[in-house]
């Protein structure tokens, strides 16, 4: 699903956000992207959905080379990717169902089908009673569930989540992670950027650790759960 070859992101003044990242993520995998604040997690995710281009190296997502992609072909890539953020990024003046419908509107789905699919997705995420509410009337956990519904309503093969539980208390965080895990169980490739150790401990998935823009650890899921001194795969 994703291949990165010596990808780097360099800003003016020779400041590196990412350095020499090479990795492969297979279709249907669940991967945690972790590391301290400023390690480069968000930059890496942004490059995966075409918001940024690498300064050097190659990135291939769902068969498309991000490095060579023109601005006009980015939308087509993004329709294959669901993205979730820490701050939800919902439209405050639209109802919950309209916030979810936006993905399907852009995909050119008929109005009747949009309503049906958005309702179904929201009901599945326990928001059936909130369809016509504005996001402000919802709790943080509910808002994030709306954002997840928006990301998943189009059945994308890839889901990227940037600190999806960062603004939520622990119970709600687990609730959100269960929803994401459910999407993974249905076949979606999932990458979750987080620095929440409780999530990492709870879900024994492959873990990519970034430190100052470098990929320092790539741990396979079968090495979990282990105590101190977990085995680490050699870097590619």
């Amino acid at each position, binding site marked *: 699903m994703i291949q990165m070859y010596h990808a780097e992101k360099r800003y003016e003044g020779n400041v590196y956000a990412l350095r020499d990242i090479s990795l492969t993520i297979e279709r249907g995998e669940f991967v945690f992207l972790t590391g301290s604040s400023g390690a480069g997690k968000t930059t890496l995710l942004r490059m995966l959905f*075409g918001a940024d281009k690498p300064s050097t190296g190659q990135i291939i997502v769902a068969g498309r080379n991000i490095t060579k992609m023109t*601005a006009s072909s980015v*939308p087509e890539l993004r329709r294959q990717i669901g993205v979730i953020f820490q701050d939800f990024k919902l439209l405050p003046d639209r109802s919950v169902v309209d916030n979810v419908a*936006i993905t399907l509107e*852009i995909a050119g*789905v008929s109005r009747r089908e949009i309503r049906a699919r958005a309702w179904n997705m929201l009901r599945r995420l326990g928001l059936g009673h909130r369809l016509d509410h504005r996001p402000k009337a919802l709790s943080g956990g509910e808002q994030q569930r709306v954002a997840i519904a928006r990301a998943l309503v189009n059945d994308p093969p890839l889901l990227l989540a940037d600190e999806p539980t960062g603004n939520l208390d622990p119970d709600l965080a687990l609730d959100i992670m269960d929803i994401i895990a459910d999407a993974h169980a249905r076949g979606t490739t999932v990458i979750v950027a987080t620095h929440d150790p409780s999530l990492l401990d709870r879900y024994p998935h492959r873990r990519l650790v970034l430190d100052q823009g470098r990929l320092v650890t790539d741990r396979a899921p079968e090495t979990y759960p282990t105590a101190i001194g977990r085995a680490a795969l050699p870097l590619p």
Partner: protein
Amino acid sequence: MIEIEVIRRILTSVRSALRGIRSAPLVFVISVTTLSAGLLLLGTYLLIVQNMRGVLENFGQDLKLVAFLDEGATDVDAMKHTLSELSGVQAVLYVSNDTALVRLREDLGRDADVLDGLDRNPLPSSFELSLGPELREEGSLRVFAKQVEGMPGINETRYGEDWVQSYGRILRAMEWLGLGLGVFLMLILGTVIAGTVRLAVYSRNDEIAIQRLVGAGGVFVRLPFYIEGAIQGGVAAAVAISLLYALFGLGLPVLGDILVFLLGKPVPDFFGRQEMLALVLVGISLGVGGAMLSLLRLEERT
């Protein structure tokens, strides 16, 4: 299938444009008001030009070319036939030298007795040619006059050279003024629309970012703004035409005498259906053009 998808996308964009207007009604009202004022000014000018052009056209209908005959010219019927066949000639009237003398007497009135001392009629016979609109322009009329003068039996031609020259100058001046005013207003109004749409883009930055995030292409993001601009322009033109019509109705009784003096009639002509449609199209074009201008720099990649 592709057509259905295109229609769906357009409908979605229309809904998005209407939502944009509803979310910032004050901006819409201010924009429509400004545009209406500009289009009212343009419409007023066009209405004046239209009526003045009508007046000038009426004057032009009286324009005649007089072709004086050689003294010995005899085959008048054949000459009349040849002249009437010329392009742009609407009618040919033969005026014999006797008729010309009678007319002169009538024109002189009480002073007609000065003609009594003449031992013979000194006036030549002539043809009076009524000319179509294509020959009312100075250049074409001059060429036509030369052509007639070159015909056998014709001695000299006369036409209202001064009037034709003035007519041409006034029309050209009005057209240039109209063009200048039009371009000036287009620039001003286009800038107003561009500013309004830019405000709308700023106020909907989050929405645009989210649309892009979930895969909206350039057309999907831009189309609602174009539609919003077109709605603004169309509504503004409709308001301007309605106001112009109301002012037209209110102004007639007040300006009645002046209009009779200036136009030769108490009720000037209002725009026809075509002119009103053209003004609405100008408004819509301004709206779409302004929106395009303001979205030129909208980043594709966010």
